[in-house]
């Protein structure tokens, strides 16, 4: 259709607002209560325009266009309405621009200047309200509030926490948490989006106060370095001081983070890069102490140390740990360094500890080990089954999206032993006994088959092995499964019906499924469910493992795994080896190497003599952690590349200071297989260097030239050797990234996998018979509690980043969740101390009494060295296929300390 703005004609589409069309065509209309990520409400009326044939002025942000509409945006009437409006706002507004943190980024300031509104000081009637600055993240000054309601709406619509409402009536109405409490005492999760969205200085980021004015900062759009969601963020930095000032959720790709969203880690957790403890020079160990040395010396020392171990004990005595925190380009170089330079097959990274079973299980079932669908299309699901994922804490931005889906009508089933936040949104909650997932999923499938709710067409056209599976699950009757899992049989039946009857049902899972001795079986059981109901290859369905780290998907894609090269090309295939040897111009080991946990064991036994570790902290993250300590101390030579000294590299012989994600270019691949850009915001701090440069230097010294000018050049090499990354270049992924498989420069990527056939050679999905077996260790008389571990919202993994950020001011002590029944029995109070003992060790913890955990089960995060919970977990037996350790079920004894 055609509309006219100020007598000029413009093309417009049905459903657009006047504001949309004006924006598209560069015609300025001021807005205060409008934000592109939120539903328009038309509250402030600053966007008033004249529309021919309508008596009153219309709000451009809410008024839909119609064919032939004639709009006037700058008439006298429009101007005077806006002026009146601004006058009313400014009449109660503190004249505080000179110290206000919004100065330079304030819509009110801009408009007051533009419309030249001056109010004599004596006429200003301030509200006289107190500040809320009780927490370390946000300062609210409602004296400056212009009542646009954006904060209320972002918290409702995007974060789904609904912390604020507009309180009182009329011109006095202001956004407040329930009962006028400070944010700290509300249920606020400090995602900070209300501060991002506030157009004035009424809600600002506390850590930014006094750091730099808006015009002194530079904006870099990059990818969050924490979880696998991969939120796009705008980081505002002081380039000179190399300092993070503040972070906004970026508008660049709403498919990932809704054009604004972050969680507390993305928003307030990035100032770890400015922690004074950053390593700024290389250090080597002399007489048990680290001493600073030059790069030259450190690199020579590192290279010579590795060389002499290889000469003495052979290449396979060296192990390499790459990193899910580093970029794709760095992971690629690291595994190339291991294979082509050190000639060792032993390269792995922490994916072994989180989703190795996903990679193994889904590859067997579907031919590809990755999330089948994408983050956006969960909003199309009719039923969502979340299991073993505390999504709102571990993948918060996606967790909020699941809540939104429920609000829009999707039905949620949660299968989890803990009463996680999502349980409040669930139609059904199945509280299975820890470690009984296979039985539960088989039970669901049993009902689905018995009630004939399977998708016959899908099964016969696209899969094999169903008949065998059908026979195998015959014995998993609801009664039998209830006995194993403790889930009432009625609920099993109801859940099976709900899931199977939906047109589009999605399964979302994470480490609660994978971190078991039978992790691969869990994954296969999930795959069975999805295939039997035809929930694959379409929108709003699929099997969706949420990858834990920012680039754990990418590190796997890059072949930082002992059995595959890039893009899951097997080291056991002669053609693959030949291709890489040709490209790299050298021999590489054509055999499967050791995994993370196996390397540690080999070090204990003296078979691994040297380790190269890039950005990992196995001392806290790996099971039976005191063994790790022992193993590391036995090494002949240990090279670490890291930003900080930590529990692991205190054993190192040399630590090479690495640059942070803000100090380098590259790419991360998020959980939905989307390759996104990481952009440099400032130069490396101190003498630190990006890992890719460090690897190049080491390589050179070991006699293999690596010459790359930039990470984008490394990506060119990756692309040439990796079919699923064939079409990925830094240039192409500038805006929205691309989801692999992306095979050519014309390929637009693959949002949904397996749409017409599966990835394996015959294109068919494979059902697998999986039988329930008991976890390797169960509570008994001596160790009567279940211990289960996981992530909490405010911290990340071994705390090396979050605990050095603003977040540590909010929460910096570990806690162990315990049911009130147990607390009473043991006589411990909230915040009381306990000892937790397993067959492997004993640690101290602080109790948090909560109904979240069932009786006889305790939960602890693994973020804190004060409660190094992995001293207790089992390093053996590993999952026989994926070699993942069994973190989620440990038998422990609990005593009052």
């Amino acid at each position, binding site marked *: 259709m055609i509309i006219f703005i100020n007598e000029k004609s413009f093309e417009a589409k049905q459903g657009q607002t006047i504001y949309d069309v004006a924006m598209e065509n560069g015609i300025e209309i001021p807005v205060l209560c409008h934000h592109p990520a939120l539903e328009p409400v038309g509250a402030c009326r600053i966007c008033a325009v004249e529309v021919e044939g309508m008596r009153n002025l219309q709000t451009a942000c809410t008024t839909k266009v119609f064919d032939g509409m004639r709009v006037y945006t700058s008439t006298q009437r429009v101007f005077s309405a806006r002026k009146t409006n601004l006058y009313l706002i400014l009449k109660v507004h503190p004249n505080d621009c000179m110290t206000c943190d919004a100065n330079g980024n304030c819509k009110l300031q801009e408009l007051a200047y533009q419309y030249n509104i001056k109010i004599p000081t004596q006429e200003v009637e301030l509200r006289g309200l107190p500040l809320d600055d009780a927490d370390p993240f946000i300062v609210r000054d409602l004296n400056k509030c212009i009542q646009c309601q954006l904060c209320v709406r972002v918290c409702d619509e995007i974060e789904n*926490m*609904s*912390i*604020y*409402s*507009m*309180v*009182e*009536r009329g011109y006095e109405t202001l956004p*407040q*948490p*329930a*009962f*006028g409490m400070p944010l700290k005492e*509300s*249920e606020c999760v400090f995602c900070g989006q209300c501060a991002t969205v506030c157009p004035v200085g009424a809600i600002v980021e506390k850590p930014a106060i006094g750091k730099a004015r808006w015009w002194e900062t530079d904006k870099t759009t990059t990818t969050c370095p924490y979880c696998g969601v991969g939120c796009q963020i705008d980081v505002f930095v002081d380039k000179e001081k190399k300092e993070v000032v503040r972070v906004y959720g970026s508008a660049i790709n709403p498919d990932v983070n809704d054009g604004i969203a972050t969680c507390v880690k993305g928003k307030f957790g990035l100032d770890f890069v400015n922690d004074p403890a950053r390593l700024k020079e290389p250090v080597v160990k002399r007489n048990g102490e680290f001493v600073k040395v030059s790069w030259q010396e450190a690199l020579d020392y590192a290279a010579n140390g590795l060389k002499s171990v290889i000469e003495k004990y052979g290449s396979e005595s060296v192990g390499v740990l790459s990193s899910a925190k580093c970029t794709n380009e760095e992971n690629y170089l690291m595994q190339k360094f291991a294979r082509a330079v050190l000639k060792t097959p032993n390269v792995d990274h922490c994916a072994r500890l989180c989703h190795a079973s996903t990679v193994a299980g889904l590859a067997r079932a579907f031919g590809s080990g990755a999330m089948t669908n994408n983050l956006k299309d969960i909003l199309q699901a009719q039923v969502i089954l979340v299991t073993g994922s505390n999504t709102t804490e571990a993948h918060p931005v996606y967790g909020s999206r699941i809540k939104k889906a429920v609000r829009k009508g999707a039905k949620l089933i949660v299968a989890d032993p803990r009463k996680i936040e999502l349980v409040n949104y669930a139609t059904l909650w199945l509280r299975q006994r820890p470690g009984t997932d296979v039985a539960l999923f088989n039970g669901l499938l049993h009902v689905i088959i018995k009630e004939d709710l399977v998708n016959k067409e899908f099964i016969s056209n696209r899969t094999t092995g169903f008949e065998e599976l059908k026979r195998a699950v015959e014995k998993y009757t609801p009664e039998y499964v209830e006995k194993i899992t403790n889930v009432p049989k009625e609920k099993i039946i109801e859940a099976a019906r709900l899931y199977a009857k939906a047109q589009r049902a999605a399964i979302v899972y994470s480490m609660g499924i994978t971190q078991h001795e039978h992790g691969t079986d869990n994954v296969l059981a999930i795959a069975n469910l999805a295939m039997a109901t035809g929930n694959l290859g379409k929108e709003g369905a699929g099997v969706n493992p949420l990858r834990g780290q920012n680039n754990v998907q990418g590190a796997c894609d890059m072949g930082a795994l002992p059995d595959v090269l890039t893009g899951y090309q097997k080291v056991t295939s002669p053609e693959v080896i030949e291709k890489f040897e040709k490209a790299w111009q050298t021999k590489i080991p054509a055999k499967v190497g050791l995994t993370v946990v196996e390397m540690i064991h080999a070090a204990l036994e003296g078979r691994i003599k040297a380790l190269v570790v890039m950005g990992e902290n196995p001392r806290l993250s790996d099971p039976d952690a005191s063994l790790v300590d022992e193993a590391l101390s036995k090494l002949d030579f240990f090279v670490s590349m890291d930003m900080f000294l930590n529990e692991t590299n205190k054993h190192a012989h040399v630590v090479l200071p690495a640059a942070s994600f803000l100090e380098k270019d590259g790419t991360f691949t998020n959980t939905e297989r989307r390759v996104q850009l990481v952009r440099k915001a400032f130069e490396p701090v101190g003498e630190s260097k990006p890992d890719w440069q460090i690897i190049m230097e080491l390589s050179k010294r070991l006699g293999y030239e690596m010459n790359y000018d930039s990470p984008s050049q490394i990506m060119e090499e990756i692309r040439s050797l990796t079919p699923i990354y064939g079409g990925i270049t830094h240039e192409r992924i500038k805006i929205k990234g691309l989801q692999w498989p992306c095979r050519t420069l014309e390929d637009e990527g693959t949002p949904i996998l397996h749409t017409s056939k599966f990835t394996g050679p015959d294109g068919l999905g494979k059902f697998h018979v999986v039988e329930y077996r008991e976890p390797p260790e169960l509570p008994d008389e001596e160790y009567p509690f279940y211990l289960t571990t996981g992530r909490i919202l405010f911290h990340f993994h071994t705390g090396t980043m979050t605990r050095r950020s603003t977040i540590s001011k909010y929460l910096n002590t570990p806690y162990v969740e315990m049911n009130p029944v147990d607390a009473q029995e043991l006589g411990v109070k909230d915040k009381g101390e306990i000892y937790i003992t397993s067959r492997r060790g004993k640690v101290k913890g602080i109790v948090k009494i909560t109904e979240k955990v069932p009786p006889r089960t305790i939960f602890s995060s693994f973020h804190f060295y004060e409660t190094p919970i992995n001293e207790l977990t089992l390093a053996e037996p590993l999952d026989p296929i994926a070699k993942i350790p069994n973190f989620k079920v440990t038998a422990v004894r609990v005593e009052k300390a």
Partner: protein
Amino acid sequence: MVDREKVSALVEKAKLESLEEKDILINTLHKIQDYFGNYVPVEAAEIVAEELGVPKSKVYEVLTFYTMFSIKPRGKYVIRVCVNLPCHVTGGREIVQILQESLGVNFGETTKDGLFTLETTSCLGLCGVSPVIMINDQYYGDLTPRKVKELIENLRKGGDER
């Protein structure tokens, strides 16, 4: 301490009595306010939010939007004075004066003996008999300072609202 079961019971009752979904919250709050004697304790409001599955902030929004609700304890008798123009010009000003004098409190305050809370209200639609006040659910029109004084005295002596 607020009795959780009692609050839950009131929520259930309101659910049964409400014809439309959207009325449940307001009806519940009315019942709770009556039960606690003229106010809704924060703790009770929190329980209501949980029971009805609405965010606490939205309950607070409703409580502050309608003048009839209060989260602060109020007196046995809540006196609301109409302060809109018609009442104001027909002697409302004097009514306000006499009330503040004889009760010894300002708007929004409660007398020390816990008997009276003084509040304002906007037009009650009874401008024909202005000036108008409300004592709890009861309206009083055609008032003079004398009549107001008598009303207060009567209530102090333990008399009925009527």
